[in-house]
């Protein structure tokens, strides 16, 4: 059967059966594509957020209509040569023809256009539109400057019936550069709204449960997650991994399917917890599923989560060095005298008044400090007498190498290098607790 012979309405219904809520886009694309032998627009630029069905719609249209096409992803084809060869080789393999004996070699755009024309001749594609779908098209901007203009004008260059479809998540304005090029036809894929999300999600209902029951479950999931997440694939994932917890009371015989209030009571705290843990990928989904089996899930996850792994074992002096670095990064240099010298309580009054108007240093991020200041703060806070041995300086560089500190303006390694402290306040508090040091008392922002 020939895809072009069937009326558009049939194709629309068959495609939108697999991809709901995208009728207008499917209709628009199909009317653009037209019949096989007709010329179509030289280039289509489809954009929309993540998981709005850009690739899915275009792929399934091309598949159902059996149009000759080739799909390339710019992340895979990271250099122009790979891109050209992927398109040319894909033209052979994607269309069910025999593979060429030797893979096509193509170095530049000039060769590509010539070989593309040859390939279309070989495959007898002169009388139908060939579609080249380029996913993640924003990467094209980083390649050679001639690629994007040439692809947009490929119909004219190759003198054949070809349509280039670019898929991207960013708007077309951000592609424009240089002396301009042929503007593509722009198709927008808008976000799904809540009802549409529900309609799509309910299609993946597990067997054994009615659609109404699953829809009830989904509306509960959406009520928690829709505020923070409209990404379809993310929601699909969350719905899939949490369903087992929802039906737990039914399996135990504590409730029935119609007992929605009881199910919700049981389920709500888990969803709230999932928002903080599994959605942020602090625990992996397998861990989450294992934890759902054990009843005290919440207690486990606080210890196992990624963010709670900020606890790092450090040598004794490294801890003090890190604390000193934190203090040097977040305290202004002129306040050092107040905190670290022995007798300087005289100016305290005037400082306190000024405190109202100064900005919070924690809002502005860490500031660089020279090594001298770090060592001065270190000797002020460390207990006992520490010799400035090679070991101490080694520990500073190893803190840099594990990315707890970073060297800024790293042109000079030896002569007074400057550092920045990269750790958070919570982290430094926990480090300071292990050495019984009250950091907050020394921080300018909190005094």
């Amino acid at each position, binding site marked *: 059967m020939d895809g072009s012979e069937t009326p558009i309405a049939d194709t629309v219904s068959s495609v939108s059966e697999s991809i709901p809520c995208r009728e207008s886009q499917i209709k628009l694309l199909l009317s653009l594509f037209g019949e096989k032998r007709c010329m179509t627009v030289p280039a289509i630029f489809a954009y929309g957020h993540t998981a709005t069905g850009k690739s899915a719609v275009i792929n399934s249209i091309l598949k159902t209509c059996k149009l000759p096409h080739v799909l390339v992803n710019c992340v895979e084809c990271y250099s122009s040569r790979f891109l050209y060869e992927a398109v040319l080789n894909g033209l052979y393999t994607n269309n069910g023809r025999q593979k060429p004996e030797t893979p096509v070699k193509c170095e530049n755009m000039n060769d590509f256009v010539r070989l593309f024309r040859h390939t279309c001749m070989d495959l007898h594609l002169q009388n139908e539109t060939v579609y080249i779908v380029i996913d993640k098209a924003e990467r094209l*901007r980083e390649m050679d400057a001639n690629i994007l203009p040439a692809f947009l004008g490929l119909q004219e260059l190759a003198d054949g019936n070809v349509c280039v479809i670019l898929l991207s998540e960013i708007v*077309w*304005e*951000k592609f*424009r550069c240089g002396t301009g090029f042929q503007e593509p036809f722009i198709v927008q894929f808008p976000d799904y709204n809540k009802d549409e999300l529900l309609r799509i999600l309910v299609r993946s209902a597990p067997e054994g449960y009615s659609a109404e029951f699953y829809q009830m479950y989904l509306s509960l999931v959406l009520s928690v997650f829709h505020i923070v997440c409209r990404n379809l694939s993310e929601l699909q994932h969350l719905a899939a991994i949490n369903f087992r917890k929802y039906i737990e009371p039914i399996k135990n015989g504590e409730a029935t399917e119609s007992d929605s209030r009881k199910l919700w009571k049981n389920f709500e705290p888990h969803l709230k917890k999932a928002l903080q843990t599994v959605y942020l990928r602090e625990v992996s989904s397998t861990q989450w599923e294992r934890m759902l089996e054990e009843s005290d899930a919440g207690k486990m996850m606080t210890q196992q989560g990624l963010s709670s792994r900020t606890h790092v074992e450090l040598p004794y002096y490294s801890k003090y060095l890190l604390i000193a670095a934190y203090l040097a990064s977040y305290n202004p240099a002129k306040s050092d005298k107040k905190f670290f010298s022995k007798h300087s309580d005289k100016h305290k009054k005037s400082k306190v008044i000024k405190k109202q108007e100064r900005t919070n240093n924690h809002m502005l991020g860490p500031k660089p400090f020279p090594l001298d200041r770090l060592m001065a703060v270190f000797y002020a806070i460390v207990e006992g007498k520490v010799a400035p041995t090679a070991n101490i300086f080694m520990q500073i560089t190893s803190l840099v190498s594990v990315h707890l500190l970073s060297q800024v303006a790293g042109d000079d390694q030896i002569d007074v290098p400057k550092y920045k402290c990269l750790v958070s306040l919570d982290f430094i508090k926990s480090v300071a607790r292990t050495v019984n040091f009250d950091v907050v008392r020394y921080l300018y922002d909190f005094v």
Partner: protein
Amino acid sequence: KSSTCVTPKIPDRCEPLSSPSNVLEEARTRLHVSAVPDSLPCRETEFEDIFNFVESKILDGTGGCMYISGVPGTGKTATVHEVVRALHRATEQEELPGFKYIEINGMKLTEPRQAYVQMLQQLSNQKATPDHAADLLNKKFTTPGPRKETIVMLADELDLLWTRKQDVMYNIFDWPSHRHARLVVLAVANTMDLPERIMMKRVSSRLGLTRMTFQPYTFKQLQEIVISRMKGLKAFEEDAIQLAARKVAAVSGDARRALDICRRATEIAENLSPSKTKLSLVGMSHVNAALQEMFSSPKVVAMRTASDQEKIFLRAVVAEFQRCGLEEAEFAKIYIQHTALCRIDGLKPPSTTEMARVCARLGSVRLLLVEHGRNDLQMRVRLNVSQDDVLYALKEKSGV
């Protein structure tokens, strides 16, 4: 063995080129830049100097260099060719010993070191890699041999033979200084101070101090050139030639430009003349039209024919520049100005997407200089024309 290969050849025309049928067509063929006349008017002294220099070297059997400079279109290469032709004529009449003439052009070489290959091929019809060719040439020029002929070499577009080590230039100027080389190098370039500017001391000292500068043509000379080409042909009015010559001399003194304008004027005259048989002379008005075509700025025309929103955008750019006193503005700031201007004109202000398209189009025709579209609202915009030009171009239209 190299003689077996076929001489490259262009296929013949299907129908022969038609010979000029009327006065203006005849004038046009004569005015063509490629139709070099037998004698170059207004370059007699330069011809004399170069001729004497080369002749004395040939007679003495020594070598030497001469540096010839001048702005484009002042007859440098044509004069050298003329000198060589005259020398050939002299050798035919056995007034001079024989010599061999070779020519390299820096613009025709893919790479400076290809000069060696070209030289070797023209001297001995051999093919070699650049390194090997340099060795062969070196041996040829530095060792005494049974060679009697002097070699005259024209090195055109000398500035393109520049390399970082300047070995090509060095060799070309060093070989003539050898006793057995008998090489005369005529180096041609555009800038007068090229030896001082880009050459190392040891290269420019080998070039020597024999220099010649071709001054730009004055209007009288340009007039004479055109008149000499029009000898025996009544196609131009006297004043028309003078106008073309004066205009060109005021700008560049480029003879090619003057010939081009005269050719274009004949075309305009032919189009405007009442019938094919009764052609009018090329008058002042025709030359003036040709001058307008070739000298007028296309940017003003581009701005006048721009769409309304593009004009408003240009006005917004100028307004923003005047507001902040800088020659560069962010797209976001211009957008604010643009919407304000639209409201004044009673138009619906465009969205940022439409504005970005307007801005990109103006950038692609180089009326503006814009950055890459990826830093959209922070994109900085500059004018590629002066603010006065923008105001002049846009005022005339809106003033009506």
